[in-house]
């Protein structure tokens, strides 16, 4: 009989049958894995998310776990840098002619803070686009007032005035509501169209009965818009009591019309 040696473990066997039996019993697993290498490669490629070598896979996984943190950190850094550049150029932009809200250091002492529904509306000067100077008290006594303070460059303001003009003006006028759209003092320091241009473009002009466009004083701006919102509205009763107020007229118009 010819001796047989197992190639895997180098054991000697007396017969070929014994060698074959040994290989079946001891080395069958190795034979299976040697026979189907492609299936394991495919599984690894699919299950381990495509990494071909260990290092690349670990880096990809590390980054994938922290991607949101990296993006958030980059966004915060960009915001801080942009704010710094913005603040740095603030004075030079003022010197180039950007309108400033106030030349004095602090709000005037005659400002009334914290007006809210239920309070009496403080009187203030109103400069109508036709050149007339009047005051809020002149409009009281006859009808409910919708006083809407706007900045002429604000998209929300243009939408609200457009909506008033296209949809709600007739209904409000029928109810006897007087609408006064007032530009906040100096457009809150930003460049925008004049209130007359604003009225022509979005509000259907300045000649609608019961609808007035005007500007006002710095005092009134600080009083009626203490939080520097770009738009704020007040519904004032004929007796001068504030019924309600809000900061987004376009969203609230259906309720304002129903309640007025």
């Amino acid at each position: 009989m010819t001796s047989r040696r197992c190639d895997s473990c180098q054991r000697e066997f007396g017969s070929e049958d014994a060698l074959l039996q040994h290989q079946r019993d001891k080395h069958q697993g190795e034979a299976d894995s040697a026979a189907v290498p492609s299936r394991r490669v495919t599984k690894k490629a699919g299950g381990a998310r495509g990494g071909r070598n260990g290092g690349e896979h670990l880096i990809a996984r590390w980054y994938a776990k922290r991607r949101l943190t990296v993006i958030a950190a980059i966004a915060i850094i960009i915001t801080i840098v942009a704010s710094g550049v913005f603040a740095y150029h603030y004075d030079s932009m003022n010197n180039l002619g950007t309108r400033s809200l106030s030349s004095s250091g602090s709000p005037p002492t005659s400002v009334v803070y914290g007006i809210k529904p239920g309070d009496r509306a403080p009187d203030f000067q109103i400069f109508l686009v036709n050149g007339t100077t009047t005051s809020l008290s002149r409009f009281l006594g006859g009808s409910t007032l919708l006083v809407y303070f706007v900045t002429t460059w604000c998209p929300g303001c243009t939408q609200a005035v457009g909506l008033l003009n296209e949809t709600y003006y007739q209904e409000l006028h029928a109810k006897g509501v007087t609408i006064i759209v007032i530009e906040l003092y100096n457009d809150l320091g930003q460049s925008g169209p004049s209130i007359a241009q604003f009225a022509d473009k979005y509000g259907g002009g300045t000649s609608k009965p019961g609808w007035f466009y005007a500007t006002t004083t710095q005092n009134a701006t600080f009083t009626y818009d203490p939080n520097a919102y770009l738009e704020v509205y007040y519904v004032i009763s004929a007796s001068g009591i504030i019924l309600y107020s809000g900061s987004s007229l376009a969203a609230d118009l259906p309720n304002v019309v129903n309640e007025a």
Partner: protein
Amino acid sequence: MILRRNSNNSGSSKLLSDLLRQERSALLLVFSARKYVILFSILAIGISTLYMYLLPSLPEGVLISQYAVRFITPTQEAFSVAFGVLFGLVIVLNLYAFKMHASSSKHLTLASILASFVNALCCTPLIPSIIAISGVSTQLMFELSPRIQAFFESAYPYFYLLSAFLLLVSIHLISKNISSCCLTASRGERRL
């Protein structure tokens, strides 16, 4: 000199064609199944419509306003369609990648959504409230708040561009994963 310039041009065009090849192969693979085509169509139309209402509504401080769509600008219209198509692609590719156990991309998509909401930073009380919480004086509030809101009001198209760019990067990353994982499998070892 001329030869060098030509080689640079061919190098960059080769890079671009390599980049696009992954997207092309991934899209061909995904859209070879009819269900993904139908899903993409529905998503693209739905998300475009949603954005057409959302983008002009945000300055009012609401998510969806029935009247705001009247005031949509041409820029917002164009980007609404673009966002619908890109988000549709991202969602369909992510679904396919998830099914094939390939890596998907979520964080960039989220960042893109946040960037497209920039209109909410203008004309709403958000910025003034944040500044007020920090306890600044009224004078400083009146100086800072309108200026910041005016910046976002004028620069919103750039934020839309950023949002679209993030979506394109997300599509590229998912396409790369799908290409490396699933193109080999699609040659007979897996079924869609």
